[in-house]
């Protein structure tokens, strides 16, 4: 094998029983087109490497050739499971760069949509993660509730998956009549559904044996690898950008950052489950405090950014998602770099997998919660 190719260090060893196993890119448990090369010794995984890039579309380069407003629909295609979170980061980054004011009402509605996104994303994660491990029932229940959230997106922005739900300067439209009532009905219903999930999994003996002590990553390793999101919170570090660098109106809201000490698959499961609970709390507060007023601020027709650079990050359901924009004073960004949490979290895969059993690989990949659209960009 040539040097520099993926998996070059995984050449078959001299040891008898060593086996190189390819998992993916067409594998249902890799959540997209991820190829994992595993070096196994019987059932044990000795080493692994991941091969990415099957979904590369050159989003960062595309951004250089489009005006600021026109790149917003492209951000949907990064993390397509949580498209509004991607829109939010881009739109906020542009607003900071172009120094635009956003009305209060728009900020509240943005937080409502962002937290609903977190719910939808975590529901999809929970369903598919449990299904990978073997609990098929939960997948159906999770998708039922996710459908309700997507219906709310459809009622507000018109689309369900690639939403393009925010605009630079505010929102495309105000909340339609009856939307808040729909949201409140969902908020009343969801806690009972969440307790159903807990009943199905949290104390289930099979679930415990499949997840406890698997894919352990310590707090120090998390910092070394630059992990973020539920991964780092599952290892005991309460890093959440909603609290550390509040954007929109998160500094006015009362919510907890759930953490767990163990750093295994089960800890990350508990963190995400509690995050859904906290999202509900945030949603309730936003609905209660929602002010009236305009939904979009003054946006000049021709947006021209001043010369300069900026990094803006938000807490997407998967971790710290950021845009680095370098502007040379034109109507288009000169350079754009996307800091994708899935990409960085995925790099720690060998740390998490080494020493695990082959069947645990699926559990570990599921617990990182990657979306390949964002990894490959």
């Amino acid at each position, binding site marked *: 094998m040539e040097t520099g190719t993926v998996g070059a260090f995984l050449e078959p060893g001299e040891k008898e029983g060593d086996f190189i196993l390819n998992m993916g890119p067409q594998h249902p448990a890799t959540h997209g087109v991820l190829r994992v090369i595993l070096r196994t010794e019987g059932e044990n995984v000795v080493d692994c490497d991941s091969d990415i890039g099957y979904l590369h579309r050159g989003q960062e380069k595309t951004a250089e050739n*489009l005006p600021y*407003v*026109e*790149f*917003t*629909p*492209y951000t949907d295609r990064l993390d397509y499971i949580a498209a509004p979170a991607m829109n939010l980061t881009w739109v906020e980054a542009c607003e900071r760069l172009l120094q635009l004011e956003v009305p209060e009402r728009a900020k509240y509605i943005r937080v409502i949509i962002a937290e609903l996104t977190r719910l939808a994303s975590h529901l999809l994660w929970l369903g598919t993660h449990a299904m990978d491990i073997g609990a098929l*029932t939960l997948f159906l*229940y999770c998708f*039922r509730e996710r*459908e309700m959230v997507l*219906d709310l997106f*459809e*009622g*507000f*922005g*018109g*689309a369900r998956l*690639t939403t*393009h739900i925010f*605009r630079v300067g505010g929102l*495309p*439209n105000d909340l*339609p009549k009856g939307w808040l009532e729909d949201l409140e009905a969902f908020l009343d219903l969801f806690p009972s559904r969440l307790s*159903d999930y807990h*009943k*199905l*999994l949290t*104390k*289930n*003996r099979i679930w415990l044996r499949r997840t406890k002590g698997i894919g352990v990553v310590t707090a120090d390793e998390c910092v070394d690898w630059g992990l973020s999101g539920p991964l780092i919170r599952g290892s005991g570090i309460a890093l959440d950008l909603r609290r550390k660098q509040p954007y929109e109106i998160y500094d006015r809201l009362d919510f907890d950052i759930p953490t767990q000490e163990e750093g295994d698959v089960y800890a990350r499961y508990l963190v995400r489950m509690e995050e859904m609970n906290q999202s509900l709390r945030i949603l309730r507060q936003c609905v209660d405090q929602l002010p009236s007023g305009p939904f979009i601020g003054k946006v000049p027709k021709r947006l021209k950014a001043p010369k300069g650079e900026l990094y803006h990050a938000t807490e997407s359901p998967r971790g710290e998602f950021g845009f680095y924009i370098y502007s040379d004073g034109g109507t288009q960004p000169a350079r754009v770099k996307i800091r994708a949490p899935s990409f960085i979290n995925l790099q720690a895969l060998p740390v998490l997998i080494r020493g695990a059993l082959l069947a645990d690989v699926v559990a570990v990949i599921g617990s990182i919660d990657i979306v390949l659209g964002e990894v490959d960009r």
Partner: protein
Amino acid sequence: MSKLKEFLSKAVAMADPSDLVAGASVTIKYFFSHPVTVMYPFEKREFSSCAKGVLALIPDKYGDDLCIGCMQCVKICPVDCLTVEMRKLSKEELLGRKFEEKKKKALIPTFEVDLQRCMLCSLCVEICPTDALEMSQTVTLIMTNREDQVLDRMRMLELGKDTQRYRNRLAAGEIECEAIQCPEPKHKD
């Protein structure tokens, strides 16, 4: 002795069925509830009023479009899926013509959207100064070849009837003409 204790505690934990009972109770609970699935080809779900389907042109009350040919939609489209051609009308030609939109002083011989490129972002709808464009509620368009994926002006006007705004205007009595007019051919020979 400690090993025996460990074994016994494990055995007790294994014999305790509370976790399985809790899980099974959830599954059994849903045996008695109604299914939430919509049996798609036989029944179709209602879309919300602002659902975004294929791009459409809103017909005005005389059956023409509202487009004034300002080309702002063409400029803002991130994927360049729109093709618009505009022909300005002279003063003589304008006499006797009825347009709903006062700004409208032009005919639009061509207005095409390439559905293979369009990503339904609705930026063109938002920038349109005369609200000539709208996202229709049609989401399924079945074609047998690629050329049909480019919708011409007539088909976009037909789709305009499947928009919430057209229905509202029809209900309010703002629209008289049901028929859709074809613009004059580009070259008169």
